[in-house]
């Protein structure tokens, strides 16, 4: 056993760090580090910078233009990007639909879609959840009816998707749709790629609990989708969906992200004065930071083990779900502590101050300006991507088998 990174991994970390430092535009970095709003342009710009460097798809094999990195390298890359203030790569294209296309798509689909994902020429979103199907995904009811007309074979899609992250930025959406009502619910689902500019597609924002527009409703009203956009076989979509969910199980630990946020708490605690001393020197507050840093330490090992097991080809166990629970609880604990660190100044909220170009007067210390919006937004992590309750079901099913 050796939990220390190899020399090659250390060198790779240095390489990524230097690259991020040199190539990440300062304005984007500052937005991330100071909890300012990041635009579609920022996101796309960073992705294109990575693409230009050959790093457009960290998780892809080389044959498709990917990096061919090991899971360890991907982890290091994610960490260094987070620590360096890079926006997280939006996963829907390169990390979610692309692996499905690679595995189940036909030659035309691979050629049509993969290069544009790689180059960030097309922005993707994910059409899974529906108002009636959240944790119970297989009960989805958006229908796709196959037809034929002068323009060829197609599906007419009707229904509504919800919690669609960044649909308002997306060019394409990959959808689970119902193509059959026979047999078990899971057996009538297909996997369809839909151009967001098709008539009948309407995006309506869902505002989160604190002034952040991240998710949407996507209404599909007689949307005509060419049949060539069906991935794999009709009614086999559930298989592809499960493949997608299982594909990236190492991404939950988010170590770099946590480190950055915990450092924020420390930075605040060093600046906040309590009873004439920095809050950081208050034994009880410092112990609370220490509790979280220790949990983060454990999470880091858990995340490394997840990657290691994956690289060794071990079948997935409950570890990914365990890591997801532990990591998302930690996000919220760090956010709570950040708010507490800011004291009374957690309260003022200046919407304009959420933008990097804010030139006005801050109500309190600038570090307090974005804490609440971030913390309240982070409540989604324990709910989305398989709620922590669903994760507990998965874990107990795996180990109890009842």
């Amino acid at each position, binding site marked *: 056993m050796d939990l220390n990174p190899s020399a090659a991994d250390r060198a790779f970390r240095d390489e990524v760090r230097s690259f991020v430092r040199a190539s990440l535009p300062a304005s984007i970095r500052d937005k991330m580090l100071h909890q300012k709003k990041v635009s579609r342009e920022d996101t796309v710009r960073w992705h294109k910078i990575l693409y230009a460097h050959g790093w457009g798809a960290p998780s892809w094999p080389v044959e498709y233009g990917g990096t061919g990195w090991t899971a360890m390298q991907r982890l290091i890359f994610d960490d260094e990007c987070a620590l360096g203030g890079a926006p997280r790569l939006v996963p829907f294209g390169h990390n979610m639909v692309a692996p499905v296309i690679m595995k189940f798509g036909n030659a035309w689909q691979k050629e049509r879609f993969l290069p544009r994902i790689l180059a960030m020429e097309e922005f993707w979103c994910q059409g899974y959840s529906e108002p009636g199907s959240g944790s119970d995904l297989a009960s989805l009811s958006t229908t796709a009816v196959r037809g034929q007309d002068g323009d060829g074979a197609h599906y007419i899609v009707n229904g509504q998707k919800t919690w669609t992250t960044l649909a308002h930025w997306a060019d394409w959406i990959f959808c689970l749709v119902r193509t059959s009502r026979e047999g078990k619910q899971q057996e009538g689902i297909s996997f369809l790629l839909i151009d967001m500019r098709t008539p009948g597609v309407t995006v309506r924002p869902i505002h989160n609990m604190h002034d952040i527009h991240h998710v949407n409703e996507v209404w599909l009203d007689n949307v005509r989708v060419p049949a060539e956009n069906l991935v794999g076989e009709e009614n086999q979509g559930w298989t592809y969906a499960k493949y997608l969910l299982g594909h990236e199980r190492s991404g939950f630990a988010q170590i770099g992200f946590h480190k950055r946020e915990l450092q924020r708490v420390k930075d605040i605690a060093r600046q906040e004065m309590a009873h004439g001393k920095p809050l950081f020197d208050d034994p009880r507050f410092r112990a609370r930071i220490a509790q979280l840093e220790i949990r983060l330490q454990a999470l880091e090992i858990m995340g490394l083990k997840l990657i290691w097991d994956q690289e060794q080809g071990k079948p997935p166990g409950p570890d990914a779900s365990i890591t997801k629970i532990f990591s998302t609880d930690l996000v919220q604990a760090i956010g709570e502590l950040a708010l507490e660190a800011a004291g009374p100044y957690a309260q*003022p909220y200046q919407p304009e101050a959420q933008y990097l170009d804010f030139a006005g007067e801050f109500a309190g210390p600038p570090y307090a300006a974005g804490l609440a919006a971030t913390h309240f937004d982070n409540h989604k992590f324990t709910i989305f991507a398989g709620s922590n309750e669903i994760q507990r079901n998965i874990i107990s099913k795996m180990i109890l088998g009842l």
Partner: protein
Amino acid sequence: MDFNFTQEQTLLEDSLRRYLAKSYGLPARRTAIAAPNGYSVEHWQAYADMGVLALNVPEAHGGLAAGPGGNPLDTLVVMRELGRALVVEPLWMSAVVCANAIALGGTDLQQAQLLPELADGSKVFALAALEPGGRYDANHVAATATATAGGFTLAGRKAVVLHGAQADHLIVSARVAGSITDAEGIALFIVDRAAPGLRALDSATVDGLRAAEITLDGVVVPQSALLAGGTGGNTGGAAVLERTIQLAGAALCAEALGIVEALIEATNEYLKTRKQFGVPIGKFQALQHRVADMLVCVEQVRAMAYFAAVKVGLEDAGARRSAIAAARATIAEAGRFVGKHAVQLHGGMGVTDELAVSHYVKRLTMLNQTFGDYEHHLAQYAEGMAA
């Protein structure tokens, strides 16, 4: 021992709840928040008409309280309803915090001048006690009051003054003697918000209120602006301030009670109606047990909200301090549990601003960082704890 509220209190509760249920849904609240001063003047007038602005004003000055310190149990009844309805009007700040400060610290003359206008809602008051760098320590007073021939000149900064830019009058703590954090040497002044030299940087708050950073730059006030009756006087402000903040804290406990009650009701309702896997999700035992654990917390909040309202009237300063600290620490901890899991059990809907649940959680979170958070109150309790 008696856990019953009086008939008057029950009537008050009923009428306030009925009024708010009818006219204070989320859309009305959004409208109030969007109004120029961040609250609804109509609602404000309605509260005045119901008499709830007068609860902490002594009878001698047109109010409903037997004496200074008001009636914390009446306040509990009102604040619980305000919590339940997520009211953004400055009732707590003006009619609880400032009414008590004036009644406790003011001379009869000052009370006679100020309180009737407070009680009928025609004037709004806000307490400017905390300072940048002082966190929750009300004795951290760097602002100075320099005596002049006819009164005082005030200079300094005041932090996160809720409704500070909308209030007509501010009650400002400033130091006439001693050094920063000394309890001795703090005095309270009534300051016209429009006074020359007073600047208010107004902003929204996370939970739908307004807060102001107040700068005092040579603000001149007359001698009569010094709150100098009761236990006040020109160096006794700290005691008035402490008691005022304790009364304010007891009221926040009651508001928290209203919120957690509303959260558990909303969660139960959601669990009964939301279906997944063909059944209401409330059929799932893991969620049922979560609700049970939430209810354990709600009952803690209830117990300690009652406790705070009863004990805040104690004469023994140490016992009062411990009681309020205990109540506020409980409410912060148990409230956080209820809020967090209410969101979680609402799933995706819980993190939207569409349902009330997220608004409750924001208010609950911020309420627990108003005049002291969990760590602050725990430390205060621990300090005074008998060996």
